């Protein structure tokens, strides 16, 4: 049957199992929106800004493991998506972003609302396509989803000129796709895996260092099985939080710049570091030269480029971490009493780590009246549902959430790790809530980042998405202020946001509810009230203004040179 390009696109999305898209209309996608008007199988959510639309699709993808979809018009609509796309790219999140484009005959003519979005997004997409012929739409969409979700996942942009949407063609969706130039490695090399097992069993001081790849690769189960079977301590990056339960005694929690004392000490002193789906980001390693100085390094990753990019690696394993860890587990089944001997051999190491945990647990000083942000996060954990999803924005509150919430399940923390995008938290929570209307979704924001995309409260209200928004209000761009305090003599250049914004009225202006807490003993009641109130709610906590995120490894210092309390 002949269909318009616009209709073909929607049929393709449906075939890919897409039930929700986040999009914003405009001249070059008006035909697409016209088709959408009567297309009942796809729910469309209209954010108030295209950047937020892409973050929402990203939050949807992070929470579900499925491909998120966003739509924008050409020109300004398309450029507004760039921060969202770059955010997803840095964190390897599968997205398909569809942008309208001026008619093919006008491309390159500086037409109204024309921009070379293919050129602009080339460095921040896994791949992108300009569709020049209506007959190509189906194959290109099939390829786009395949590329987005396989291998190391990432965003794919499809630029669709207006005339291509209007033109008609027979619709046939390809069953499968073959790309001779794209063949991600799935299985790790068996010999390398064997070697990894024997290196592990020979170690006296092993540590596993786990990144977002364990979550996007759905490897949390295998990871937890392997670590608990062998009693190997596990530390995770921000992106890896939730891949290993933080209430497990083997958890060392977060490592790196704001990681725990015991995680950073364990990495500095270990003799074997097993990196799982992590990429040795500079926020994690500190000074490269002194990172894990005594350790042999095993690095498993689906993306060969991340291996040996920043650090020397003794044993690389390219493959899906789920596969690789699964095979390691199998191989352990056959290694008999070696495992028992290994348990005995690493006992002193576990005791040493326990000593570090006792010496410097992750903690803060409670105050009598003023609200400590860490206390708010602890209360949130206590009072929220066990399967609550927490999205954060970027800044101090993000690190306090990472340190004090205690993540136990994969895909329950949504946070912009690689790009550190302020404005991410609220729309990402919106995306997760759209995916899981019945789960509790909490957005933890600073007062700064919240103001970068606060217009999305309107979208929450309109679409009945009951996100509970936490604003940790210090009237500062807190994280930058912290750096200024520690490294710039307290010269607080442009980080103070002294403005009595009434966040409660703001919530009400959007048709949501708002509650405020100014004293420590109001925290619990405020959270309870917010959780009991249906619909989107803003909770504002006026927190200790100059509270710092600690411990902290100053940029460029070694992991064991932590500022523990200042």
């Amino acid at each position: 049957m002949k269909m318009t390009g616009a209709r073909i696109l929607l049929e393709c999305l449906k075939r890919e199992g897409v039930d929700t898209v986040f999009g914003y209309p405009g001249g070059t996608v008006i035909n697409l929106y016209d088709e959408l008007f009567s297309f009942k199988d796809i729910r469309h959510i209209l954010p108030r800004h295209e950047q937020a639309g892409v973050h929402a699709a990203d939050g949807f993808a992070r929470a579900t493991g499925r491909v998120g979809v966003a739509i924008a018009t050409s020109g300004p609509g398309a450029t507004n998506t760039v921060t969202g796309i770059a955010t997803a790219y840095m964190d390897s999140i599968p997205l398909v972003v569809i942008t309208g484009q001026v008619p093919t005959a006008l491309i390159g003519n500086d037409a109204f609302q024309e921009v070379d979005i293919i050129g602009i997004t080339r460095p921040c997409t896994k791949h992108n396509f300009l569709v020049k012929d209506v007959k190509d739409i189906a194959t290109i969409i099939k390829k786009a989803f395949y590329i987005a979700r396989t291998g190391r996942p990432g965003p794919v942009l499809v630029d669709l000129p207006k005339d291509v949407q209007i033109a008609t063609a027979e619709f046939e969706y390809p069953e499968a796709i073959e790309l001779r130039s794209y063949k991600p490695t799935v299985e790790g090399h068996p010999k390398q895996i064997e070697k990894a097992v024997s290196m592990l069993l020979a170690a006296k001081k092993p540590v596993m260092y786990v990144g977002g790849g364990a979550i996007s690769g759905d490897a949390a189960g295998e990871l937890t099985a392997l670590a608990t079977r062998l009693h190997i301590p596990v530390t995770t990056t921000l992106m890896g939080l939730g891949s290993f339960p933080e209430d497990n005694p083997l958890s060392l929690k977060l490592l790196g710049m704001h990681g725990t004392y015991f995680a950073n000490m364990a990495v500095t002193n270990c003799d074997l570091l097993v990196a799982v789906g992590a990429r040795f980001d500079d926020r994690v390693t500190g000074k490269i030269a002194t990172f894990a100085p005594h350790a042999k390094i095993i690095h498993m990753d689906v993306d060969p480029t991340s291996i040996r990019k920043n650090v020397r690696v003794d044993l690389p394993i390219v493959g899906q971490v789920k596969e690789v860890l699964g095979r390691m587990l199998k191989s352990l089944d056959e290694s008999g009493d070696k495992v028992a001997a290994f348990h005995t051999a690493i006992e002193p190491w576990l005791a040493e780590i326990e000593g570090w945990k006792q010496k410097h647990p992750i903690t803060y000083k409670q105050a009598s009246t003023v609200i400590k942000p860490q206390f708010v996060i602890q209360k949130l954990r206590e009072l929220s549902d066990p399967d609550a999803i927490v999205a954060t924005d970027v800044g101090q509150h993000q690190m306090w959430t990472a340190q004090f919430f205690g993540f136990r399940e994969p895909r329950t923390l949504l946070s912009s790790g690689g790009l550190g995008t302020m404005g991410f938290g609220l729309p990402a929570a919106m995306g997760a809530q759209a995916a899981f209307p019945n789960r509790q979704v909490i957005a933890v924001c600073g007062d700064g980042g919240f103001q970068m995309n606060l217009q999305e409260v309107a979208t929450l209200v309109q679409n009945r998405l009951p996100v509970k928004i936490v604003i940790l209000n210090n009237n500062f761009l807190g994280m930058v202020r912290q750096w200024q305090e520690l490294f710039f003599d307290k010269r607080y250049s442009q980080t103070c946001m002294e403005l009595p914004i009434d966040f409660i009225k703001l919530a009400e202006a959007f048709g949501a509810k708002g509650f405020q807490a100014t004293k420590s003993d109001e925290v619990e009641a405020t959270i309870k009230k917010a959780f009991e109130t249906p619909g989107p709610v803003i909770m504002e906590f006026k927190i200790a203004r100059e509270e710092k995120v600690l411990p902290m490894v100053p940029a460029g210092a070694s992991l064991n040179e932590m500022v523990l309390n200042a």
Partner: protein
Amino acid sequence: MRHTITVLVENEFGVLSRVAGLFSGRGFNIDSLSVAPTNDETISRMTIVTRGDDQILEQISKQLNKLIDVIKVIDFTDGEVVEREMALIKVTAEDSARAEVLRIADIFRAKIIDVTPKSFTIEATGAPAKIDAILELLRPLGLKELVRTGPVAIGRGAKALKG
């Protein structure tokens, strides 16, 4: 270290800018880059000359492989590869110098492809070092204009890369 890298890519628009963008975006240097379709019209072949230590070259090769349109990447080491480059050289050639230019062109088996009373244009092909050598001899005579293609490379021996 100088490396000659051969990249087979899908013959589609935009691929060249992806490859070039990868180099510029990551601060890798390109000495030269030449590209054209192969005997399989759906595939283009690039020859890229670049420099860097082993770690950089490993990254270049992996990053190239990561591009969706890249089918194959081969980093040739010296001795495994035959390289040829072409140069078009316009030199001043007046009076007694004309004979000297002709002699040099002859020694290098270069062709004169355009003649005026004041100049010769020479077509020279060969390994990059041979082009360098002819240029060195011609330069004192008055080099007016020079175009070099950058090398194209093919592996030695009977084994062939498809495409």
